[in-house]
């Protein structure tokens, strides 16, 4: 059998999975649109983030830091640091996806948690490739639709604080963090990071505690892998 072809049944399964995760992410994008607008970003800036950045945790970080009064550059740096994990996903996907050409440039935009999870769970490279593109396209559509709905809805509210939207970003970060806390070491790092960030917060501009935490965890990771 031609290894580039996959059965209709496998295709249907992949499309069904892709739609499921895309619709769930679309609902989560509604909260991103709302939080971003409440943080003071315009409708166009909010939608630009979902179209151009298209990686959830980084988007939440940027608007969360801006909303808390930090500089947009501290937000941008934190967003990029959070995006570093996508490089490791790209490494895992590079054997499945085309290594050259325009299609790789488009594929790169779709290299995120969800597409990686859906692609690596398949039986053959052809099925993985199909699942990657199906998830990427469906998620891109619903992610941007959800963002637009959340942003427009929040624009209609005069004071987002009345809806408790200032309490939404920490809950969003917690929901993104929870699946990464299965190991005891991760739990210890999370606690230490929270304490360090709060301890240096009174002495440096808003947003900078995050960069301090990033430097410390990188040092910890590099020193530990030596032993």
């Amino acid at each position, binding site marked *: 059998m031609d290894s580039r072809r996959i059965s209709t049944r496998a295709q249907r399964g992949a499309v069904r999975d892709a739609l499921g995760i895309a619709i*769930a992410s679309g609902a*989560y994008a509604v*909260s991103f649109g709302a939080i971003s607008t409440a943080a003071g*970003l315009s409708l166009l*800036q909010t939608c*630009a983030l979902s179209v*151009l*950045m*298209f990686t959830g945790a980084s988007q939440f970080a*940027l608007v969360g830091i801006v909303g*808390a*009064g930090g500089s*947009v550059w501290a937000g*941008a740096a934190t*967003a*990029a640091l*959070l*995006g*570093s*994990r*996508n*490089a*490791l996903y*790209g*490494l895992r996907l*590079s054997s499945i996806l085309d290594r050259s050409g325009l299609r*790789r*440039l488009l594929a*790169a935009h779709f*290299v995120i948690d969800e597409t990686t999870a859906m692609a690596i769970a398949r039986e053959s490279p052809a099925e993985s490739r199909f699942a990657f593109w199906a998830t990427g396209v469906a998620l891109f559509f619903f992610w941007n639709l959800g963002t637009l709905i959340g942003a427009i809805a929040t624009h209609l509210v005069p004071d987002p*604080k009345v*809806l*408790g*939207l200032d*309490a939404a*970003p*920490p*809950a*969003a*970060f*917690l929901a993104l*963090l929870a699946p*990464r806390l299965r190991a005891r070491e*991760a739990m210890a790092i*999370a606690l*230490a*990071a*929270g304490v360090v*960030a*709060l301890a240096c917060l009174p002495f*440096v501009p*808003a947003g900078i505690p*995050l960069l301090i*935490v*990033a430097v410390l*965890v*990188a040092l*910890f*990771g*590099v020193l530990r892998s030596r032993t």
Partner: protein
Amino acid sequence: MIWAGVLVASASCYALKLAGLSLPARVLQDARVQRTVPLVPVALLAALVATQTFATGQHLVLDVRAAALGVAVVAVLFRAPFLVVVGAAAATAALLRLL
């Protein structure tokens, strides 16, 4: 100013994704990279939870957001979907402010 940050951050995030697909595998397979990169989101997301709950600007504060986070923790422990976790936290803060 916000636009510049949005565009630079978006370009950086895209560059990281493309780097994963393009760099020679040995660069990213380095043990230090493999062990360190997955720790970064854990530390940053935890620091974001802490600073966005217990601070306003450069001041440490304890307000309704702490209660909202408590509700979010419970929702996460019950494996509630993302939107429920965020919605429950926002609703808690909104209700407590009404009291």
